């Protein structure tokens, strides 16, 4: 499954988009970049909401647009979740879902009940959009997009217009989608934390051009977001056993053992976790008695010392995988850290991302 996208677009305002990519659409692909980088334009071209010259769009071998063809948006089967709250104001939440259901193209394996449960909106159905909070509206909007049985789900900054508290509540729903649905997703965001927690592949875009395309694990370490204060590593590990006495799961990570605050795992489960760079510290000697449970032996792979400011970012490798540590430049000098050195990586915070590493 793939989406082929070739765009050579120049606006009178000087805004340019020049892209030639093939996106593997079996997973969640994030388009990451600052606002005005051309992400939304790409989405609009993919869905056909915008038509421009010199654009080729092909989805799984089917031509949606080239020099001679243009499939209108209502025939493309793309679910679109908009940045701004966008439910039909004259219909209830249930009415909005029905609108999508009536017009869907083929029989879907996804029933209304499934979608309502997945997004937890059963008690919102009889309300009108203006009686719902931003986060609630966006959950209904996602349900509406899913019910149209899209072949490709496109989300344009879906959390962009809701407040931080609502965002933290809605992210788990998105992760649940990611885990249970087979629909390929293209997710656009300028927020690093969302991309890290949701995407499998990240395409970074700047000034209308693709600057990198990488699996989430590499994007987290080497991508343009690695220097940001909210940067984090994304790693995969395997559950070994469940320690019910302490409500901890023991997981194996590159031959070493880690503990996670999690209770419902079976040995053998593959999980994906996020380790924020600011929760990671480095020591030369292995600490003997520490409240920190997770201490990994690792090798320094790369040091990003900006040369000014208080902090530097150190990339450390444990086997095949890498972590980020955000430490002070003072410590960097005092410990005399260099690439290739063996260090002990102490991890204070670990966030679980998905139950099913695919």
């Amino acid at each position, binding site marked *: 499954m793939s989406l082929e996208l070739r765009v050579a677009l120049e606006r009178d305002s000087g805004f340019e988009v020049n892209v030639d990519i093939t996106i593997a659409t079996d997973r969640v692909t994030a388009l990451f970049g600052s606002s005005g980088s051309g992400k939304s334009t790409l989405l609009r071209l993919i869905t056909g909401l915008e038509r421009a010259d010199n654009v080729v769009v092909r989805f799984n071998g089917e031509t949606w647009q080239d020099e001679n063809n243009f499939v209108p948006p209502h025939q493309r089967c793309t679910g679109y979740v908009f940045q701004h709250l966008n439910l039909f104001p004259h219909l209830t939440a249930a009415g909005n879902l029905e609108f999508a259901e009536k017009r869907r193209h083929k029989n879907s394996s996804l029933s209304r009940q499934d979608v309502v449960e997945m997004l937890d909106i059963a008690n919102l159905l009889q309300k009108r959009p203006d009686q719902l909070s931003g986060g609630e509206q966006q959950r209904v909007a996602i349900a509406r997009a899913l019910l*149209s049985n899209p072949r490709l789900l496109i989300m344009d900054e879906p959390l962009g217009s809701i407040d931080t508290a609502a965002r933290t509540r809605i992210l788990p729903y998105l992760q649940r989608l990611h885990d249970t649905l087979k629909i390929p997703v293209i997710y656009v965001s300028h927020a690093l934390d969302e991309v890290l927690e949701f995407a499998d592949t990240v395409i970074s875009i700047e000034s209308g051009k693709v600057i990198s395309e990488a699996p989430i694990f590499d994007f987290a370490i080497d991508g343009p977001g690695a220097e940001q204060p909210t940067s984090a590593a994304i790693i995969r590990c395997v559950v070994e056993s469940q320690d019910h006495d302490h409500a901890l799961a023991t997981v194996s990570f590159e031959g070493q053992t880690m503990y996670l605050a999690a209770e419902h795992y079976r040995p053998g489960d593959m999980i994906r976790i996020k380790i924020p760079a600011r929760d990671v510290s480095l020591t030369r000697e292995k600490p003997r008695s520490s409240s920190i449970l997770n201490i990994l032996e690792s090798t320094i792979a790369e040091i990003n010392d900006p040369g000014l400011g208080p902090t530097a970012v150190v990339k450390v490798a444990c086997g095949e995988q890498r972590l980020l540590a955000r430490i002070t430049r003072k410590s960097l000098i005092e410990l005399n850290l260099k690439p290739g050195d063996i260090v002990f990586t102490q991890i204070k915070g670990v966030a679980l991302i998905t139950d099913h590493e695919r």
Partner: protein
Amino acid sequence: MDPDIVSLWITLRLAFVTTLVLIIVGTPLAWWLSQSKGFTRNIVEPLVALPIVLPPTVVGFYLLIVFSPTSLPGQVWQSVTGSTLAFSFPGLVVGSIIYSLPFYVQPLQVAFSNLRRELIEAAATLGAGPMDRFFNLIVPLCRRGFIIAICLSFAHTVGEFGIVLMIGGNLPDETRVLSIALFDHVEALDYDRAHVIASGLLIFSFVLLFTLYSLDRQWQKTPVGERSS
């Protein structure tokens, strides 16, 4: 039958037919004006608004010339129907459509321009084609604009005088609408009958506008399809 009742009937028929034609012709025109940019649109927009500022007699005068059997439209009409457009009910309908056009098109054009584009785009990505989007999304979202447009064009046609006088004349069973009948009664110093028609038109117009404004206040409390950002 009382000639005033005949006039009432002609007036209502005229207003009804005119409004119906305006819904069919004016709606796409309003949509086109609200969506397109460019030279043609910029020419058409003031043309549509012209009847608001022009004396009805000017519009009537030109229509009379166009309707005459010596002009092409007049000839075509005559060869098809066997009668002239001037001084006939169909001629009145044509005149009323032109004269009431801005009262139908303008409120609707405003409603269409205020529609949030993203709502229509959402409907498209959900699989709704252009006609589906129009009837199941745009019409309900713009219902306020539609009702105002329909009421105004209907009422305006009922109240029209100058154009009717120019192109319709005063044929008792064909073109004598209420406003003309009123004029006749006043000229004949028959004030009793004039009072009946004048007060009837006054009350009709007041009730219509009162209802319209009340509905409007109610809709503003529960905004339907208004631009929210």
